[in-house]
């Protein structure tokens, strides 16, 4: 189920809230959230729930064992077992086909006749990368001694499956939420702020991201695209991915507040960064800090010499790229950012443009990030080539691209989006008091979002086939 869907907004959410606040006594609230989260997740495919339960059980047992183990090697053994199981599950469901195809390709080059591994066409369970990392963080936190084992399986399963952040983050680590699972406050201030943040996130996703996606989709995949078209499409995609992802994170934070949870900030105006190093402190913060603490630092961080630091940065970003999806374009994207981070580290953790005023540094960083999204968005190396030709102006300025045919609204929203990412406060910085004016504005925004969602998902009454 998606937050921007009819079934969530007008069916499941009212039921969850009614059950949570009106029907069930406090001790049953985590259990209720657990049940609802499985319904939310099973809505796609009920079979996925068993995988979620399996990952949850592995880390629950491992966490208990780690805390009970008397020797360091025992603790390390149980942690290794949990991490291996989690990564095997993630690896199988997300990367098996990719790996098998790569291996078969390699065997083919080396002169082998038959494929080494069969391609299984495994359906990717939604959100698996998020919840595997989240669940794994429990075993790691207990191993490190920064969290105590969960009080019961229900509390822990509730933490792993918590529907607001189950499928698209933020990846909340166990020690950040352990206290809140035990005891959290509920107030009208939290609920009001939750509603406001949820609506702002919904508007980012439905109004901004989905509108600019029209422009982005026009450009990517079109051969012979001209200079303006290519740059406009790339800018549109750069905005789309930010508004889409951060909008979803905002909705998660808002929903969390409705149930008394406080999730960490996931985006902090990333396009206002003056360097790539700063960008990664502002973009998908929950993932970059997870990778920093659980991959970069264990690899040695910056404590093992200059060369090793660059390697660690590069390796972390390469794996971070692969985390986003099983395709060579994601690997390239990770490597691209890894190289930039290493170069900036060599330059004293700063931009190469640091002698220039900050707006120039921001512009330069934005350009680097945009070219990174080109790798991220291209579905094949051929598509990447077409876009690069367009960006370089090989196909002329216009290149047959329907620049005028996109509708006034999409253009207006593209410009509005650019203004917002550079000049406006983000959702965490917005000041909003519970006034009549704010209430009316948010209501209008909510109604507009609902109207767009319903327009896009419903067809007229003439044919509705049950």
């Amino acid at each position, binding site marked *: 189920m998606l937050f921007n*869907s*009819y*079934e969530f907004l*007008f*069916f499941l959410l*009212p039921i969850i809230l009614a059950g949570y606040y009106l029907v069930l006594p406090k001790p049953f609230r985590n259990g209720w959230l657990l049940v609802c989260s499985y319904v939310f997740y099973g*809505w*796609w495919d009920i079979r996925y729930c068993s995988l979620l339960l399996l990952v949850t059980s592995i880390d629950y047992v491992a966490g208990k064992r780690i805390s009970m183990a008397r020797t360091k090697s025992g603790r390390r053994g149980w942690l290794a077992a949990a991490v291996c199981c989690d990564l095997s599950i993630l690896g199988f469901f997300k990367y098996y086909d990719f790996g098998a195809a790569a291996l078969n390709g390699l065997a083919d080059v080396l002169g082998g006749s038959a494929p080494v591994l069969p391609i299984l066409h495994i359906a990717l369970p939604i959100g698996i990368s998020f919840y595997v990392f989240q669940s794994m963080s429990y075993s790691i936190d207990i191993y490190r001694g920064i969290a105590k084992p969960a009080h019961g399986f229900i509390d822990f399963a509730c933490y792993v499956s918590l529907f607001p952040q189950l499928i698209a983050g933020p990846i909340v680590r166990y020690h950040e939420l352990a206290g809140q699972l035990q005891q959290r406050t509920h*107030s*009208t*201030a*939290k*609920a*009001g*702020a939750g*509603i*406001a*943040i949820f609506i702002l996130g919904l508007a980012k996703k439905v109004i901004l991201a989905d509108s600019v996606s029209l422009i982005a989709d026009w450009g990517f995949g079109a051969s012979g695209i001209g200079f303006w078209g290519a740059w406009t499409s790339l800018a549109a995609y750069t905005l789309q991915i930010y508004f889409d992802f951060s909008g979803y994170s905002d909705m998660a*934070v808002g929903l969390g*507040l409705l149930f008394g949870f*406080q999730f*960490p*900030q996931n985006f902090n105006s990333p396009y206002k960064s003056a360097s790539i190093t700063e960008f990664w402190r502002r973009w998908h913060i929950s993932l970059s800090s997870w990778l920093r603490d659980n991959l970069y630092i264990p690899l040695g961080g910056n404590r093992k010499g200059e060369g090793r630091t660059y390697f660690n940065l590069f390796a972390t970003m390469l794996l971070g790229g692969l985390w986003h999806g099983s395709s060579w374009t994601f690997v390239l994207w990770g490597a691209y950012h890894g190289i930039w981070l290493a170069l900036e580290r060599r330059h004293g953790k700063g931009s190469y443009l640091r002698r220039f005023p900050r707006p120039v540094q921001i512009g330069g960083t934005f350009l680097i990030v945009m070219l990174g999204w080109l790798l991220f968005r291209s579905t094949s190396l051929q598509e990447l080539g077409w876009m690069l030709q367009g960006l370089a102006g090989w196909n002329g300025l216009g290149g047959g691209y329907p620049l005028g045919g996109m509708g006034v609204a999409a253009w207006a929203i593209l410009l509005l989006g650019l203004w917002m990412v550079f000049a406006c406060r983000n*959702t*965490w*910085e*917005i*000041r*909003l*008091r*519970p*006034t009549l004016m704010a*209430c009316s504005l*948010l*209501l209008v925004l909510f109604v507009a979002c*609902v*109207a*767009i969602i*319903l*327009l896009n*998902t*419903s*067809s*007229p*009454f*003439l*044919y*509705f*086939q*049950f």
Partner: protein
Amino acid sequence: MLPTLLQDFQNASRRRTRSWVTVFVLLWLVGTGADWVFRITRFSWHKQIVRPAATEPSQRTADRPSGKQHVVREGLPGDLAGMLQMPKVAAKYMEFHPGVVYSTDADGLANPPDLPSEHAETVAVGASFFLSSGTQTFAQALSKELGKPVYNRARRGSGAFLALRRYVESGRFRQHPPENVVWGLNARDLDGAYFARQSVSNWFRQGREGVGSTETLSFGARLNKENLRPSVLRKAWPNTSALAKAARVFTGRLRYALFREWPRDVRGDVHPVFGPMLFYRENLRVFEQMDPERERASVVATIQNVAEQLSEEGSRLVVLLIPEREQLYREALPQEDQKHLDRMQQLLEEISGSLQHSGVSVVNLLPIFQQQTQLGHRLYWRDDTHWNDAGIHVAAEETARAIRSLRP
């Protein structure tokens, strides 16, 4: 770190935040509640999920021999004119629709033979095309052509599959299987994936065993689990939502007023021969997604399965492929909208060819309808998705010819 907004709310007076939250929650609950009331009252959505327990067929016929009377008032606008939701704009495209009164018996069959002891040897099973909508229905026209009574078993808005399924599960089919079952399939419904999901043999088996694909609940009602699948609900809920209707009406009117753009669902155009006509954009979207290569195999396999099952019960299947209006009046549509129509023509020809090859009787109306249209006969209403008297007449003639050719 906390969002500033949360701090602002925490610093505001408790009374103010409470009223703020109350306003939001109340409005949202009212919207949600109203939408569900609309869904139940206007669409009887609950009946798709829970049906009353069935009684024995003989009892049902004896209890309610006369069934139900249906009145369609004259002068109502066509469905496309209604859907446009802009009466002034729609007026340019509207034409007069005559009213109809007809009755259905306890098994939902209209147009019965004169004597209650008789049973028609031909039954027309389909969706809204068989209910509409001139001075006579398709079954009545076919009856005239054949010179024999033809039952009409049509269900509006539920698709040809549900209509056929309900019919073969009914007591009437089980007690008196007809000689011919004419099954009307619309071009836009030839979605291979949808056909592939139909486990046809189950309907017949369950029909024979007297049990539906439903479970008995303790209070005697039956639960239709098929319609509770998330993939079905995901489509069904927004399609039966008052909020969605309001959103469509509002944005449609706004866009027309501001930019003279047609709404998402309906557009008006002027045909060079037939003048102003309304078109259903959803059909064009459906055509865009269809791929003859992909659809043909599943559609043909499923129809063959239906034909085999019917043949086991002693009935013959006659498939009637009904084109959509967009396929006949394509000259009126913008170039952009015409590009997928050729594929649809190909799909209908391929399905028709494959079915004939495998011995299933099929009437593809598209070629004859195109021919009649070229001769200047308008076979569809200006303001409605369905055929008019002329269209019904041509379809009945062609079907009667096919049925006569089947006779030993």
